[in-house]
């Protein structure tokens, strides 16, 4: 459209003028924007249809399929509603174990990420001049733009038996043979923290940046020591940032699939791998996979919501 406008600049009537005087265009605009109510429906209808159809639809359909005894449907046979897919989850420990492992793992990693990134965010917000803050923050954002798979692969190279860490340890004479870091909970944790750290860092930074330094100074004048100031002033006043950072990291880290496959081992099977198996290896077990996904989604959102409510009581819902 812009191109047409440029071309038509030489004409007497400009592009927009010509467009507006087309009878078809006039009719269209009167039809769409004839009254405030029509304008409202034009904007509202598509928005509401899209969020219901594209955002809520997949979740509801997954819930529906989770109650069917067979999906995708086979010809000449109506699927029957059943609870068997949910019963299956509670009957076998190979399903229950990864489920709780995922939740425990995601919680632990969220806590670890918080502890690791809080000093970094605090340093940026409090000890760096305003001009340099953005530069130092941008530096941290660069690796964030690199995709999940590439960063997971980078961790594989770091921690492998011939990896950089083992080379360094051997060179320092600390070990004789390489330590098998890979395919353990350790390598998986390092990888997931690597992927999610910035989702924690950004909310923490923006919460700390908004907090006036004068609050801490006032507390210092009243005789509070460094630790007391942090515990009584800074920490409570940044809990909004802590809540949204933790919610994001918890939900994101419980949803990784490729990273556990590449960095984890048999002892660290997470629920995402369990669920994925029903879709890839055993092609006809979609309803079971759907039921398991529903259980996980519900639990993850409930935990995130409860945590949010606990940490910042004024906010409602799990929206990060």
């Amino acid at each position, binding site marked *: 459209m812009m191109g047409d406008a440029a071309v038509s600049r030489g004409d007497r009537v400009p592009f927009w003028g010509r467009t507006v005087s087309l009878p078809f265009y006039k009719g269209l605009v009167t039809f769409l924007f004839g009254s405030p109510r029509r304008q409202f429906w034009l904007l509202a209808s598509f928005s509401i249809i899209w969020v219901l159809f594209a955002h809520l639809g997949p979740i509801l359909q*997954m819930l529906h399929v989770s109650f069917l005894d067979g999906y995708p449907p086979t010809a000449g046979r109506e699927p029957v509603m059943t609870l068997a897919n949910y019963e299956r989850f509670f009957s076998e420990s190979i399903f229950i174990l990864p489920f709780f492992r995922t939740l425990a793992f995601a919680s632990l990693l969220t806590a670890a990420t918080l502890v690791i990134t809080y000093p970094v965010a605090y340093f940026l917000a409090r000890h760096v001049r305003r001009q340099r803050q953005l530069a130092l923050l941008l530096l941290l954002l660069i690796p964030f*733009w690199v995709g999940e*798979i*590439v960063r997971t692969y980078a961790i594989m190279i770091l921690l492998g038996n*011939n990896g950089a860490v083992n080379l360094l340890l051997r060179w320092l004479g600390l070990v004789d043979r390489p330590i098998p870091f890979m395919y353990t909970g350790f390598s998986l944790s390092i990888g997931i923290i690597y992927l999610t750290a910035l989702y924690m860092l950004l909310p923490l930074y923006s919460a700390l940046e908004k907090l006036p330094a004068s609050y801490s100074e006032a507390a210092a004048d009243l005789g509070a020591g460094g630790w007391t100031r942090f515990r009584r002033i800074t920490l409570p006043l940044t809990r909004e940032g802590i809540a949204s950072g933790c919610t994001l990291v918890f939900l994101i880290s419980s*949803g990784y699939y490729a990273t556990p496959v590449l960095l984890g081992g048999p002892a660290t099977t997470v629920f995402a791998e369990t669920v994925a198996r029903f879709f890839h290896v055993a092609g006809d077990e979609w309803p079971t996979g759907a039921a398991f996904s529903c259980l996980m989604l519900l639990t993850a959102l409930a935990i995130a919501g409860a945590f949010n409510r606990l940490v910042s009581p004024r906010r409602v819902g*799990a929206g990060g």
Partner: protein
Amino acid sequence: MKRNSRAFLACAYWAFVVYLFVPLMLMVMMGFKDSKFIGFPIRSWTLEWYLGVFRDTEVLSVFGYSLLIAILSTVLSLAIGTWIAAFLNSYRTFPGRMLVFGLTLLPAVVPGIISAISLRIYARVLGIEPGLWAIVWSHAVHNVPFVVLVVIARLSTLPPSQTEAARDLGADPLIAFIRVTVPYLRPALIGAGIFCLLLSFDDFVRSFFLGGYDPTLPVLIFTRLHSGMSPEINAIATVALVLTAIVGIWAERSMRRMRKEQNA
């Protein structure tokens, strides 16, 4: 006491920078190793693996395919996201607004694997075959919440008097939107668009579950990793890394310019 804590915090920051950068640097370096086996130490160096990336027709076509998906899904999510943002911004007293807003953000809080699986089931219901359009659709759904958040932040700073002035001068609502609102939104649209491009180009889980026989770049790296690590994968990953890092820095700058304009 104060100096000590500052030194400690500075160390924490720089240690974090090392943690973020060293693995990626090692990965780039390993692509120059003159051997088939991944691992240190590197005794001799070669450019062969990097040159190989540009000779490998499969890799090049996968690059193109990923780029096509990224562009299509970005255009789609920008259009849809702007539409929803315009609605949420114009009718702030609409009773169901919070519900629509919550549903808009829903795809952003659903864990990745569940999002991929629910979209896979849904695509089956809608009759969308796994492949290009299924991936584009899933990426668009995932990206819309981010577009809405960025565009609404910008829209809320547009003084209503500007579109009203256009209306007084005889513009109909559509012309006022195209010639006043859209130019005002430009920095937000560029920033959100680049963000969507990166999210789509880097996405693994949705592309993996909704893809047909043609892999996207992350899926290709994932499947090649199954047959073992090799410097060839390092070279492919590095090319992807350089591309995304350049685009990311560009995005960051355009977003910063927008914030500066807003503050001014």
